[in-house]
Every structure is written in C-alpha cells, then in structure tokens.
C-alpha cells in the first residue's frame, strides 16, 4: 500500500485467520492497523492502494474482485463493527428499519423474528420496543450492541471489528468484548479484532499479531505470545501498561515515538531499532526477516533471545506527603444544573467532601456522566457551587470572585484532556505556555517570557526550540507536555488533570506518567488525576476517590480500595478491568440494559492450540 510519494504503509504482512477464530491486530496509532480493515472493505483513503500481495477469503482475492461480487460479499459474508457506535447508525431511521437492510434475504415476515432473535443474542432487553426507537434514544453501549447484532445478522464468515470499544466506558467495554466473543463462538465466525490494547486483545483473541510501523513484528497464539513475548516491542508494550494487581513497577517508557511514514521509509534496518532497548549494531543495518521460534509463533527480530532480558524494576516508594494544612479542602460541595428556571434540576455533584495534601497524588475515577469533570470545573472556579465550600490553602474560593481567581493562579491549575481543543492553533508554543505572564495589566515583555518558556519546556522534557512552533507541528504526546507546561507556569501547588492520558498510546502514556512523577519529586506538586483507567490510577496515585452519579461512593488508599473494595460500584468498576494474568477468569458485571448475566471463559486458556 502506497501514498503520495509512494511510501509503503504496510510491508510484508501475511497472516492467516482460521474459521471460528479471533485474530487480534495490536498496535499503536500510526502502525497501520486500520489500513488492514480498510483494505478488506476496499475503502482505503484516496491515494492509497494495495500494490502487492493478495487478500484471500476462502480463495477469493478481495483485492482484485469484480465490483458486483464484492458488493455481494461485503456486509453479508464480511461484516464490520465500527469504532464510533453513535455515528455508525443512521440517526433518521429507526433501529428496526436499519435492521431490515441487513436482513434483505429474508421475507418481510421473517425479518422481525430474526431481528428480535439477534437483539436477544446481544442481551438487550425488550427488543420489540427497541426496534421502534431511533439511535439518539439509545446509549453508546446499546448502540454498539445493536451494531454487533447487525454485524452478525447476515451470518458472516468474517467480522472486522476496528477498535469497537475505544469510545465506550470501561464497564461497557468489558461486556461488548465478551459479547463479540460469545456470538463469535456460537456462530462460528472468524473475527479480526483491531485494537491498541494488548491486555484486552489477550483476553478475547486466539491469535495475536503485533504491528509496528506497518510490519508484523510478532505473531502467535495469544497465550504463548503474552507469556513469552519474543519481540522487544511486544515486551515493552506489555511493560508500558500499568497493571491492576501485584506490585507496582516502573513503566517501560520507550523513548521518542513510532516513526512517521516518511521517516520509516528512510530507515534502513529494523524500524524499531532507534527505540529498542536491546538494539545492537546490526539492527540499524539490516531489516530482520521473520523467523519461527515455535509451532505457530514467529518474530521479526535479530536478537529475540535477548528480549527476556528486558527487566522490570519495582517502583520506588512514594515520598511521604508533608502533613500540615490540606492544600485543597471540599466540604459538602454540590452542583445542581437546571434545564429551565422552573425545573427542579439535576444534581451533577452532590455533597462531596475530600481533601488533598501537598505533594499528594489523588485519583478520581468513575464512568462518563458521573460528575468527575463537573467537580474539576467547580474546583477551578469555572462553575459556581450550589452548596458547600471549597478551600484552597487558607482561602475560601467558593464564590469564585476576581480575587479568588488571582489566588487560584498560584494554587491550582488545570490540564485539559483534549489537546486539539486546549491549545490555540494560532499561537506559538512559547506564547501558550507563558500565558499567565502575559495576563493582566503587568504583562511581561515577550523576550523575557520566551526565557521562561524555555525553562518550562525543559521541565516537561521538550527541546527549547519548540517555543517558536505551532501546536499543529507537534505530536499528541508533545502537545500534552505543552499543556502541562502551561499549567506549571504560575508554579501552582496543585494540578487538576482531566483524562490527560486517555487519547494517547501506551508508550506515550508511560512517558507522561513518568513526567508527572518526576514533577512531584522535583517540584513537590500535588495532583488530582481524573481518569476512567483504573490501572493508570493505581500506578500513579496513592489515594483514590470513586465517583458514581455525582457522589463519592468510596475513598481511601489506592491499594486498599482496589484490593478490598467496599462499595458495590467500586467492585463493578474493578471487575470491568481484565485481570493481568490471562489465565485468570474475567467476570465483568452485567449492565443495566441487559437481560441475562453471562460468564465467559477466559479464551486464551480455554482455546486448545489446533488448526
């Protein structure tokens, strides 16, 4: 596959997917995972084409298929499950009408019967009512279930699922993944499961293919590949994602990032070599061939025997947090939103009390809509509280006055989630990070501000010449560092970080987590870390707050809460995270929309190595 200057996006990729098996394609953004799905669907972006090789579905080459035959195959023999469930359904048609499109082969009388059957198979309650509804009346999880039901409607031979759970909450993600596995098992369909999450893939896939910079660097049986990863990249991916149990270890933060298409084409040897912890001289010279190291395990690395040597180091003990007066204190804080002036309103946050001490990292977890972000906005004075008081140091900032805002500047700053939206595309990095100095009537000259900007950039690990760049010229991870640098400008004592690593690849995430820990060691900064990812919170924070429907249902030391959760909701959140050990059974709780709870066997353990 080739773009513009004829650069390969995917190289020498071959894999086989046996009937009734699930193949996981794992890789970071830019690895070319989605290109595989696009090539199968014959929906490559303009300018890209399959230049060599073949894609065989039961001996029919999908690349050189007559359009009529392809139309017959796609959607019937090959079905797709999209990443964004809300946009994959047509908003102006009812669910029933959209089901009919997938059931054209049946008579009109049979269609309804079959649709109800399928909805029942994805454990959706009250299918008959559901068929009359429109997509906007359904939650994201329900939409994804409907899409899965539709994908299985034509009894396809192959299903391509491209990041089907990335846009969903963790609790829903768990069930969706299980659902795909369950239906796949019953219908004996093959599934190509594209994901960035190695742990998730290990949970439901029979085989795993790890993609790096367009090349399959390792493939094999899921159990084997995870137990003994042979490629250093696979090993680093594993070590870069924080665990949910066991002892906390230092995350393997790979330097830099995956090369872009043009950079990669310029590399002579192994494309992972520049970042590889065990690279030797010959790695940069010649591209390693695929070689077999087991019955069905192959790897593209010159020194795969050394991979085992990439060691885990235990995390250093967290520095003791200085006592004294708390940095932030919330007492009975509540926030009510009113739809109109006569409505009674809904409480987004209710009677919340907690404190954060100097230098303390506190995690705030919960599903979307639990009020996490509203709480952050209340602390930052972006919303007015309905009840309660907020203290920053010794000052009451509940009423968010001008004087409070000036006080807050040096006490608490916010790091935003979406860097696309958080960094003004029309301002230079140097101006963005020193905004605080530009503010007010005592603006400081630009030359002086740029000096400060260079110091700040160095603090977050970016080169000084970035001051003159625009955000669009930076990668996602670099942008998030700029975002953090801006928050640090006024030397605040507390950072409020709303989902700041959620959109990032695991290796970049590991780099940022390391940065936050270094900032604590160097600046003694405290952090309120809002996240839906429990493993990350466990890795980073010594205390955790669990939020559900606007209230904090449980709080305490992270280890204690995660090891012995007291609240039912905390248990549910924890159950949704796949266990670190692939052999351990994973039993997420059923969600509200479901009919019957289902327990699914761990696949990697149950699947016998055959075929």
């Amino acid at each position, binding site marked *: 596959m080739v773009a513009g200057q004829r650069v390969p996006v995917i190289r020498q990729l071959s894999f086989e997917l046996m009937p009734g098996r699930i193949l996981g394609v794992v890789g970071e953004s830019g690895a070319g995972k989605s290109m595989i799905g696009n090539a199968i669907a014959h929906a490559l*972006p*303009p300018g890209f084409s399959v230049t060599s090789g073949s894609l065989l579905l039961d001996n029919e080459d999908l690349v050189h298929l007559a359009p009529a035959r392809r139309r017959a195959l796609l959607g019937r023999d090959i079905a797709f499950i999209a990443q964004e469930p809300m946009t994959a359904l047509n908003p102006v048609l009812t669910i029933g009408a959209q089901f009919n499109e997938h059931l054209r082969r049946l008579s009109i009388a049979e269609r309804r019967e079959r649709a109800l059957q399928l909805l029942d198979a994805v454990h959706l309650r009250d299918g008959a009512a559901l068929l009359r509804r429109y997509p906007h009346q359904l939650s994201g999880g329900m939409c994804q279930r409907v899409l899965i039901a539709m994908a299985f409607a034509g009894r396809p031979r192959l299903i391509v699922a491209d990041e089907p759970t990335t846009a969903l909450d963790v609790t829903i993600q768990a069930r969706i993944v299980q659902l795909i596995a369950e239906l796949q098992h019953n219908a004996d369909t093959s599934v190509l499961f594209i994901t960035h999450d190695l742990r998730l893939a290990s949970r439901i896939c029979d085989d795993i293919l790890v993609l790096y910079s367009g090349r399959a660097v390792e493939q094999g049986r899921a159990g084997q590949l995870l137990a003994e990863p042979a490629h250093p990249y696979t090993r680093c991916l594993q070590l870069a994602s924080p665990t949910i149990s066991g002892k906390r270890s230092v995350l393997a933060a790979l330097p830099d990032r995956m090369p872009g298409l043009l950079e990669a084409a310029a590399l002579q040897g192994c494309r992972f070599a520049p970042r590889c912890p065990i690279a030797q001289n010959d790695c940069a010279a010649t591209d390693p061939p695929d070689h077999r190291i087991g019955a069905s395990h192959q790897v593209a690395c010159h020194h795969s025997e050394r991979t085992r040597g990439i060691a885990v180091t235990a995390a250093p003990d967290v520095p003791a947090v200085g006592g004294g007066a708390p940095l932030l204190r919330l007492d009975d804080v509540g926030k009510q939103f009113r739809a109109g002036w006569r409505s009674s309103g809904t409480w987004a946050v209710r009677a919340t009390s907690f404190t954060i001490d100097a230098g303390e990292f506190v995690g705030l977890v919960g599903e979307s809509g639990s009020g996490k972000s509203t709480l952050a906005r209340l602390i*930052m004075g*972006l919303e007015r509280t309905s009840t309660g008081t907020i203290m920053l140091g010794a000052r009451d900032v509940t009423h968010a006055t001008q004087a409070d*805002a*000036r006080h*807050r*500047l040096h006490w608490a*700053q*916010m790091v*935003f*989630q*979406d860097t696309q*939206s*958080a*960094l*003004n595309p*029309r*301002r230079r990095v140097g101006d*963005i990070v020193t*905004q*605080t100095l*530009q*503010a*007010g009537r005592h603006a400081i000259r630009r030359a002086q501000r740029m000096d400060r900007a260079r110091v700040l950039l160095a603090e977050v690990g970016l080169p000084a010449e970035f001051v003159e760049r625009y955000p669009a010229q930076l990668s996602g991870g670099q942008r998030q560092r700029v975002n953090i640098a*801006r928050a640090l*400008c*006024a030397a605040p004592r507390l950072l409020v970080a709303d989902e700041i690593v959620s959109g990032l690849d695991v290796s970049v995430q590991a780099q940022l987590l390391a940065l936050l820990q270094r900032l604590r060691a160097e600046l003694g900064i405290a952090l309120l870390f809002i996240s839906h990812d429990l493993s990350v919170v466990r890795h980073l924070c010594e205390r955790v707050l669990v939020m559900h429907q606007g209230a904090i249902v449980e709080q305490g030391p992270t280890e204690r809460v995660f090891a012995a959760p007291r609240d039912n909701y905390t248990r549910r959140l924890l159950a949704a995270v796949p266990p670190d050990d692939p052999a351990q059974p994973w039993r997420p709780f059923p969600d509200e929309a479901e009919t019957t709870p289902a327990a699914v066997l761990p696949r990697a353990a149950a699947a016998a190595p055959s075929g």
Partner: protein
Amino acid sequence: MTALRSGRVLAGAVLIACVALCALFAPLLAHDPGEQDLLSILLPPGSPGFVLGTDSLGRDQLARLLFGAQLALLVALTAACGAAILGTVLAHIAGYFGGFIDWLISRAVEVWLSFPPVILSLILMVGLGTGADKVVLAIVLVDWTRFCRVLRAEVLVTVRRDYVTAARLAGFSHMQTLLHEVLPATLPLLITLLSLEMGIAVIVEAVLSFVGLGVTAEQVAWGQMIADARANFAQAPWTVLLPMAAIFITVTGFNLLGDGLRRSLDVRLSVARSV
C-alpha cells in the same frame, strides 16, 4: 500565504486592483467629468476626443466612469469596514458573554433582518438626506447584521474550546481573551465577509444613486449615470451599458476575492481537500 495562490483570489484581486488604479489616477487619465459639451451629445464610443463616447449632456463617459469608480470604491471600503466593525464587536460581545446580552443582541439582529434591506436603506436615506457619507451610514446601519449573525455563531464555537477556558484560568481579562484567543479564530471569516460586503456595498450605493437618494448632484456615481441615460437607451445603449459593466466588474471582483478567501481560509474545506 497559500490563500494568495488560489485562482479565484488572484482573479478577484486583479479586477479590484484595476478598478482601484482607475479610481486613483482618474484626474490624470480624464478631464473634468462635469464639463458639458452640448454640441457633441450621445457620441458613440471611439469618437475623436471621447474614447467611450458622451452622454445626453455631452459629458465624457470615460471621465464619468473613472470618477464614479472613486466614489464606488470609497463607499464600498468605508461602508464595509464600518459594518464589519459594528457587527464584529457586537458578535463577539454576544457570543463571548452569552446569557442576557446575547439574547438582547440576537433579538436586535432578528428585528433588523425582518425589514427588507432596500426599503430600510431608502427610509434611512430619506431621513438622513443625500451625500456620500449618508450612503455609507445607511449601508453600515443596514448591513452590520450580516457580520453579527455569522460571526456570533463562530464565536460560540470558539469559546467552547478549552484554550479559551485555559486563558481565563491563566488570568487573562475578558478583553485579552477576546483579542488573543477568540478574534484570531474568527478573523478568516471576517476577512471573507468583508470582501463580500464590499461587493454588496457597491450595488447598494448604485441602487440608492439610481433612485436619486444617493450622492449629491455634483458627484458622479454609476447608479446616477444609469438613471440619467435611461431615457436615451434606444438611441445610445452604451450610455447605460458602460456604467452597468463597471458595476459588474467591480462586484465580480469582490465576490471572486471573497469566495476564494472563503475556500482558502475555511478550515473545514481545507481539511477535506488535504486528505
């Protein structure tokens, strides 16, 4: 600037530049536009001494067209800028602060838009009296709503971006936030609207002059030329067609420029193209 490389922008800019040069050097290129020569009335274009012929009072058509360009461009520039400033300020205030202020400004725009624009400017001109400055004022008072309505929507989108919140958290005043964070995002749209508005201003000025409510009798305006020549259309069609062509060229120039800028500066369109 990539915007300048687009064909439309270039074509528009060249047309406007030609008209602007004519207007600028009018005193050098032609003699007095008011001078009457009753012995040579309604001469066709190409007559000796009168390159583009004469009108019913024997006035040089070329001179009148060139001096008319002066007025047309002056009115277009000042009126469009005036309307842009008024509309932009109100749009940013409404979109940024929201709430009651937004409600008030939006309702004012709606009431304003419910008057037919031509009737509104005619009424204004009757009240204000004639003169180029009155024409400008009438256009500003009618057309600020165009800027206000479109830019307010853009401001609403921009203020929801986290970088605006971040600027507030960094201690920026409202004024600083608007100037450094919001305005740069709305500027491309503003420039586009400004260019299109200049084309509209040329037409409105011509219409007002045509019905005799525009400039005073001593000034030369294209609309007035058409009005004067109407009676002799059968004998001397060029006396009507030449000022019409002048209006057409100028408005086309502004529209091409505006449309080209819109295509080059609009982020959404450029994203679609770059894939």
